[in-house]
């Protein structure tokens, strides 16, 4: 990221068509989505389904950002930039879910009705 402007990489290149490649990616994505939907109905252990769902959607996520969004071909700084946000957002979500999942955080809304006068 700290590369100064002075270095001049090779002159521009003609963009090769990624038409077929994109179609393939899209097909894989659709298939994965199909698998996801089917997965929840299969009589598999819950932990397995959850893990599988999370992995699959993370895979889809990565496929879209790295291929459709060109990250794979862009300067690595774009990836860093985006992942700063992604990781912080993920970390915050993780922390919030833990905070609210803790025993101390069980809401008492069930008895709130009694307190209201």
């Amino acid at each position, binding site marked *: 990221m700290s590369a100064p402007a002075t270095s001049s990489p090779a002159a521009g290149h003609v963009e090769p068509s990624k038409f077929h490649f994109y179609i393939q990616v899209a097909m894989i994505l659709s298939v994965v989505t199909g698998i996801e939907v089917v997965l929840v109905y299969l009589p598999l252990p819950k932990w397995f389904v959850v893990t599988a769902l999370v992995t699959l959607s993370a895979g889809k996520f990565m496929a879209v950002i790295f291929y459709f969004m060109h990250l794979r071909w862009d300067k690595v700084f774009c990836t860093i930039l985006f992942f700063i946000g992604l990781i912080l957002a993920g970390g915050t979500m993780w922390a919030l879910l833990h905070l609210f999942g803790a025993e101390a*955080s*069980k*809401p*008492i*809304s069930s008895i*709130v009705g009694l*307190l*209201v*006068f």
Partner: protein
Amino acid sequence: MAQRTPLMPPLLHMTRLRSASRPILRLIAALTGGFALLLLTGCSKLHQVFSLSGPQSTMVTAGPVASRQWDLFMVTVWVCTFIFIVVGSVLAYAQIKFRAKTEADEHAAPPAEAGHGNPFVEIGLIAGSVILLVFIAIPTVRDIWYTHDVPEDEKAGAIEVTATGYQWWFKFDYPSELVKLPNGGEAPLSTGNELVVPANTAVRVQLRTVDVIHSFWIPKLAGKVDMMPNRGNFLWFKADKPGYYYGQCAEYCGESHAIMKFRVIALSAADYIKWLDNQKLSARTVTAQSLAADAAITHVRFASLKDTGPNSTLAGSPDFDADPFAAWKKMQDHDAGENAALITAGRKNFSDKTCITCHTVRGHEGIGIAGPELTHVGARSSIAAGVLENTPERLHQWIKDPAYFKPGNKMYHGGYIDVATGQPKFTLSDSEIDTLVAYLHSLK
């Protein structure tokens, strides 16, 4: 590295200071500093500015939770003071030692390649900071667990109460102390604004709120825990000895947050039982006969306030401030010169002026729950959530104009006047208020 030429002098004059104005400046600095000191000493109450001995002092602790918290605080203070002295000395030394002394100094060429840090110094300082933090971290973690809940070995003897925050007063319930309701059934004993507990016993307080967030804080006994809507928060404390403790709501909760206070009164075990027994009784009914029956009672009343104008201080009377606990105890006795006729008229006015719709007087007509329970209000040392001392004058003033003492107060807005129309719901003459005062003060 290329050749080095001396720095070119600044293109235009810098405002010179060296000469005439420096002494003047020194003088000004000394004067302003001196002014501050003078002020401190001048008001001859220097120590008061840094006083830590008020009724809500976190230093003059009266229970294990608060003293743990203070001790931990002092750990942080010592560690930080130590760092401050070390770092501050170095900083002060550098500031004095390395100041520019000559004109030439001020335009000295910067060193060529110096000052890019020294890894050993940096790492050493980082390590030092971390070690010092560990000194704070260990007792912190230990005390987080200690202050969180009643220790195992005290759980059995602990008592359980529920404190509920209302805009802007506190209700206290004793779930394990049931009282018989006049029309049958039982309910937990309930009081308002003054929490009475046994000393030397762990008290676990369930914290609830009916409206916004409040916070339950008795500085001498324990740090605060918030009353969060929809959360089952709690806190524990223990008073080392009998006494009278000040508490206050510590979370901004709307217009009168500043004056949402309460008291905790810790009693010896025997006194506590006595108090409970009295509280469990229904409201006292005063008649000419009953008065004759308990004639031989010592009558004590707080000294009244000297000044009752609108801008007067609302603080307690000198007696009260000197020994609020004794004052509270005396409050448990029947007042001098009780007038049965006045009290009976007051009881009637209490119904007529719709007070009963918001206040409970167990055994009498009052059945409302929007305001504090008044069954034994005459035995409290303060009214209106700790704002006023419970003297007849104060009570009179309160009933006359609750909104003056507590802006936004629900007793006025909604009780006295209709919120929708702004119209008063009834009139109250001074003599009517006198009857109400007599009645309420008879409720011991």
